[in-house]
């Protein structure tokens, strides 16, 4: 059984297959009966070691729309607080016969480890600061809906790149799809290994904005900030926040994205966040279609339709 652990697992053709499938599914979400019998009898477990109501709900609804049985397994109040490790939780799920496991974990690589312990398909819903492939897919889907073909699209990702799995997955996937990515962040929030990523890096947002088709603001991840990465929130906001003046520097058809939850006034001004060129609520809607597509392609047949990926590690 194959998995979706990283945006790197997806070839160009597979990424397009996911996006095309999601497009068909999005079109069907307007009808009165939104449910399909496709995954009837299959069990999907949402294994969430970190709180994430919106991602978990999105996966839960996606699985339910495909008629799968869904079990939510969150760390709080489960055996994890009693000291059970990931492997034993995995073996329990295995014994219950889970066909698919959606995992969110604070440790990078947790999804890869899990993939070795269970037979079911594993979907990485965010592992530490490493990857969040379905978020990247839904971002790519949103860009495709708004801007058309991604080839040659200039995408600027702004903010806390160091702690952001969203940034990493997006860089990889957007590169696969032919977009040009520029990361903009304070020097302290750029990962050391960034030179190996297929993207450009800049520290000055104002220089990059006029040459940008899509600007993606990242969340400043307060919960992962173990050191002082920038002096004050006010200074961060002044240099990297997207306010009305900066917004005006963008080409007139450029769009603004944010994976949410956003800190209004710091990362992005309320005015920009609510503008018609912001896709923030669309991204949530699209997330559902993309996750349905991923679950369908991984679990809908005798084997995954995403074939060139193996569990690693």
């Amino acid at each position, binding site marked *: 059984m194959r998995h979706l652990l990283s945006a790197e697992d997806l070839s160009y053709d597979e990424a397009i*297959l996911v996006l*095309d*499938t999601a497009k*068909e*599914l999005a*079109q*069907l979400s307007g*009808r*009165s*009966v939104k*449910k*399909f*019998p*496709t995954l009837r009898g299959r069990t999907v477990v949402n294994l969430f070691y970190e709180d994430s109501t919106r991602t978990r709900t999105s996966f839960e609804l996606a699985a339910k729309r*495909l008629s799968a049985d869904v079990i939510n397994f969150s760390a709080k109040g489960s055996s994890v607080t009693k000291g059970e490790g990931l492997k034993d939780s995995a073996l329990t799920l295995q014994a219950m016969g889970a066909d698919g496991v959606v995992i969110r974990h604070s440790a990078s690589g947790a999804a890869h480890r899990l993939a070795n312990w269970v037979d079911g398909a594993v979907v990485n819903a965010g592992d530490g600061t490493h990857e969040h492939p379905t978020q990247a897919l839904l971002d790519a889907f949103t860009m495709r809906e708004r801007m058309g073909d991604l080839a040659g699209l200039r995408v600027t990702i702004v903010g806390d790149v160091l702690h952001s799995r969203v940034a990493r997955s997006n860089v990889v996937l957007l590169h696969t799809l032919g977009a040009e990515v520029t990361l903009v962040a304070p020097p302290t929030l750029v990962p050391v290994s960034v030179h190996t990523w297929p993207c450009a890096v800049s520290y000055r947002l104002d220089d990059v904005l006029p040459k940008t088709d899509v600007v993606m603001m990242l969340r400043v991840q307060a919960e992962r900030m173990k050191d002082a990465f920038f002096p004050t929130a006010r200074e961060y906001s002044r240099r990297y926040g997207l306010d009305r003046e900066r917004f005006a520097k963008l080409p007139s058809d450029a769009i603004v994205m944010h994976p949410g939850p956003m800190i209004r006034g710091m990362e992005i001004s309320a005015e920009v966040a609510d503008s018609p060129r912001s896709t923030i609520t669309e991204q949530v809607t699209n997330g559902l279609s993309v996750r349905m597509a991923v679950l*369908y*392609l*991984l*679990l*809908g*047949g*005798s*084997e*995954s*339709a995403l*074939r060139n990926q193996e569990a690693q590690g």
Partner: protein
Amino acid sequence: MCANKYANSDADARSEDAPPRADLEGTRAVLEDLEISRALTRIAHEVLERTKGGEGVTMLGIPTRGVPLARRLAERIERVEDRHVPWGSLDITMYRDDLRLAPARALGRTDIPADGIDDRVVVIVDDVLFSGRSVRAALDALNDLGRPRAVQLATLVDRGHRQLPIRADYVGKNLPTSLRENVTVLLDELDGRDAVLVGPAKPRTVSEGDR
């Protein structure tokens, strides 16, 4: 509206379904373009007769090759009766009962005309009627989309070997076949020519078996 959409996107997206030329060796044509054209004209007239002038009729083709057939039937009825007949496509992939037998397949396009299907006479159109399982899936899919006044079935070829109690209302040609034979429908919109070919079956995936 549907016509353009189909011509641009669906035909391209589905072109990989066109059988490669080498596949067609050893086959014989049982219907050529003129015969197909005549069969569709006859079906169009039968639809008009049974539905008393085609009022409230919506044609829904099952992708891939049911869709151009649905469009052609709708156009023929329009020509005869000067009445607009909405047509669209109804993808049944998510409703198939053989999903577990093969890798998950790409979804086709579902494109329901703006009027919807409530209280309409929906004619499901497919190229080949075989086991009947595709039609069963189509009935399930329709059920989730609305409540038609009646559902009818039109097929270009009925090759027999039904596995479910399903019968077509309109048949272009009854084609007795053996289970070891393969029936291939080629349509101008997708394959560059119209023909129905019968030939010895090649090793194939289970999922194709019911088309």
